[in-house]
């Protein structure tokens, strides 16, 4: 039996979305309201298991009476609000944000980035060949996961997941300022010297693939990573009595990555080092032992 937490009923507020009257539960965000109406708003730093940081600004929409655009991921619905999601102004900001990101960061493993860049007509190349980039080398300092900050958009999700929102480990934080800001351990120490407990919950929330399993990183480097050839099997972790759901990503009969369903009431997508990385015994085949 799955426990479904019941919440007190919420009042509905009336607002207009692109001219259409809609009702949304009090306290929900504009993004919730848009998605309920089937409107596709791009998001990057928003995560279904985290409090919105509204840092990437790719989800901005126009709210009547507001001087600036509002981030749909965090602005709450209000009675009588008039919201427009597809105005020239909102589309312009989304386009430029995509251009700014794509011109400074490697978005090659960001799901849907290419699609959005095309949809909004973004041209990241127009800032010229000399445009400053993140210019980071992948940090490979342990056997479990890799931090490739060339792909990092500084969405803060990994910091929030590592810190007070989930893991309470606080191994990483944002260091530096402005364009030089980077996700970092103290004094840029390798992970092995940091407080990291290798739960991998940062990988779970990373929207760009900057954080990835070492197995995925190696396979991508070797050109053998093929998501279309992978199956996903959700099972229960056998290590302890909590009963976390694991989703095993399997390619050619090898587990290549482990995630957890975000709507699982036990894990909310989070695991510990055992569930996340402790799968080698499953595939400790004779040929691997040699």
């Amino acid at each position: 039996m799955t426990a479904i937490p019941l919440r007190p009923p919420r009042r509905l507020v009336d607002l207009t979305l692109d001219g259409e009257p809609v009702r949304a539960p009090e306290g929900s965000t504009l993004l919730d309201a848009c998605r309920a109406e089937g409107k596709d708003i791009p998001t990057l730093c928003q995560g279904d298991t985290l409090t919105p940081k509204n840092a990437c600004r790719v989800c901005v929409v126009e709210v009547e009476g507001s001087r600036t655009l509002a981030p749909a991921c965090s602005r709450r619905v209000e009675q009588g609000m008039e919201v427009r999601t597809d105005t020239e102004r909102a589309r312009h900001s989304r386009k430029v944000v995509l251009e700014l990101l794509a011109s400074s960061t490697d978005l090659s493993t960001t799901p849907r980035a290419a699609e959005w860049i095309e949809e909004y007509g973004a041209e990241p190349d127009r800032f010229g060949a000399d445009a400053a980039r993140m210019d980071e080398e992948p940090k490979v300092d342990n056997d479990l996961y890799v931090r490739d900050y060339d792909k990092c958009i500084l969405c803060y999700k990994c910091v929030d997941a590592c810190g007070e929102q989930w893991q309470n480990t606080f191994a990483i934080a944002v260091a530096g300022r402005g364009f030089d800001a980077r996700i970092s351990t103290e004094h840029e120490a390798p992970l092995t010297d940091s407080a990291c407990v290798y739960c991998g919950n940062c990988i779970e929330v990373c929207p760009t693939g900057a954080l990835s399993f070492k197995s995925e990183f190696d396979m991508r480097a070797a050109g053998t990573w093929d998501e279309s050839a992978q199956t996903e099997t959700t099972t229960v972790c056998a290590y302890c009595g909590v009963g976390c759901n694991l989703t095993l990503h399997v390619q050619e009969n090898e587990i290549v990555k482990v995630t957890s369903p975000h709507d699982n009431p036990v894990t909310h997508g989070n695991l510990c080092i055992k569930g996340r990385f402790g799968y080698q015994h499953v595939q400790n085949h004779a040929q691997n032992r040699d």
Partner: protein
Amino acid sequence: MDLRFGDSKPTDEERAAVDALLGPPGSAWEGADDRTDTDLRWARGGREARERRDLLLPGLHALNDRVGWISEGGLDYLCRRLTVPPAEGYGVATFYAMFAVKPRPATVVHVCTDLACATRGSAQVCAELERDLGPAGSAGSGAVWQPSPCLGLCERAPAALALRAGEAPQAAVVAPATAGAIADAASAPHDAAAEPPAVAAVPQSGADGLVLLRRVGVVDPGSLDDYRAHGGYAALRRAFALGPAGVIREVTEAGLVGRGGAAFPTGRKWSATAQQPDHPHYLVCNADESEPGTFKDRVLLEGDPYALIEAMTVAGYATGAHRGYLYLRGEYPRALHRLRTAIDQARARGFLGEDVMGQGFAFDIEIRRGAGAYICGEETAIFNSIEGRRGEPRSKPPFPVEKGLFGKPTAVNNVETLVNVLPILIEGAQAYARTGTDTSTGTKLFCVSGTVARPGVYELPFGATLRELLELAGPPETLRAVLLGGAAGGFVRPDELDVPLTFEGTRAAGTTLGSGVVLVLDDGVELPRVLLRIAEFFRDESCGQCVPCRVGTVRQEEALHRLKDRTGAAAAGDIALLREVGQAMRDASICGLGQTAWNAVESAIDRLGAFK
């Protein structure tokens, strides 16, 4: 919270610096050297220590002031004392420009290369320093120099500030600066020539009609008695007679609006804070004056520090706050010294503390030093900075009056705004509102710098024109442009000098008063250089939280680099690019920094015909 610390140990000096601030550690859990048997039985202090997180920034200052930089061992020890994760402590330390996490000499010289100093030869000074001391950032002969954003010494430009770490940290202001004077100050900060008194920055001193500046140069800034002899604490007495609601009524009726740049009605802010059911309430005075070309608050703080102490007490009384934080920018050593003295004296004499003036109202003020971050002047970033977090703006709503400092209702006001409350209470709202225009009441301080004969802080009633102000300051013979409002402001042409200096008047003219910067540029100015410097400033000062500002300010600077020597058709492509990026920064950035980062560049292109 189960924190993991490295093996680095603090030096004795670092330990002493932190202990001087926090007191000796209570147990080995907090970093004491000897582990006792009791320590093994009980772990204590976690929650208590965490509640002192706001001492992280003062702790970083303590380390930096003592050894000149923040080492792994020192940071670890500070974090252990406050139960702050070391990664977060590192994130905070690297946020501020005045801190270094790599070894550097004890003496650091900040040489201003910002707008006002650039008009007065800062490039020459830097070139000479490079010749004499080596390139910026290179540690030679026990000192290192580095270019700095505006130091708020524009009336004496070019300016430099030498800071020497040690048991008794030293600071020396060198302005006007020459390479020789800077080298002297760097080798012996304590022997540097004394600064001229604050009143030297007030060319109108002694004139009739001064309200905010009337005591500067008249009163002894180190004496509470002298302050009282010149009308001090009459306003607070009147406030106690009126009661909190009465004070708010007076301030509202006087039409006082915020002087920090946003022009929000102060009475409304106070009343909204006072009405919040959540407690405690806080007051924050924003003295993080960092807009390039702004130095009015410094002159007030150095010349009449008690006025701010009194005004903060009034504000605390009106809003129901018992604690006020005075967030002072880190580059103002003299203001810091004067304010510390003033607060100590006021406390000793019962003007601060448990029972202010025997009226049963408890109020005290704590100074928090900034550490070189323009963004911390933003009204929510200032909260994060005080709380010991990275000075990143929060998204609004919720607004500060609802959830501000420590998540509690907070009124945050600029120095000049607060000081205006004194004449309002003494003269009464009606009398105060007779000065100025209908919607901009009272007087305004203007920071006039650049190529004028008499740079300094001027006080004029709202409604005076820019021409009148420039006449007072002695304009250059061939005026090219005036930058109003600082880097986040806009340019005005020589044929627009009749713009009335009011919030509504400048807005109608498509520019802004901002914080009162009036930077005068003559014909000799290279406009593209000025714009590039503005762009560099925003790139350096962007906190990096949101994409439009973090990357947009970089792309803006890159485009202005390309445009440096281009005009006409060759410039058109990059100007179009600037417009597109600028629009996105204005529309989609989280806070005012990103939203205004393109204002000055835009106005230079549209109004001055830059790159034509």
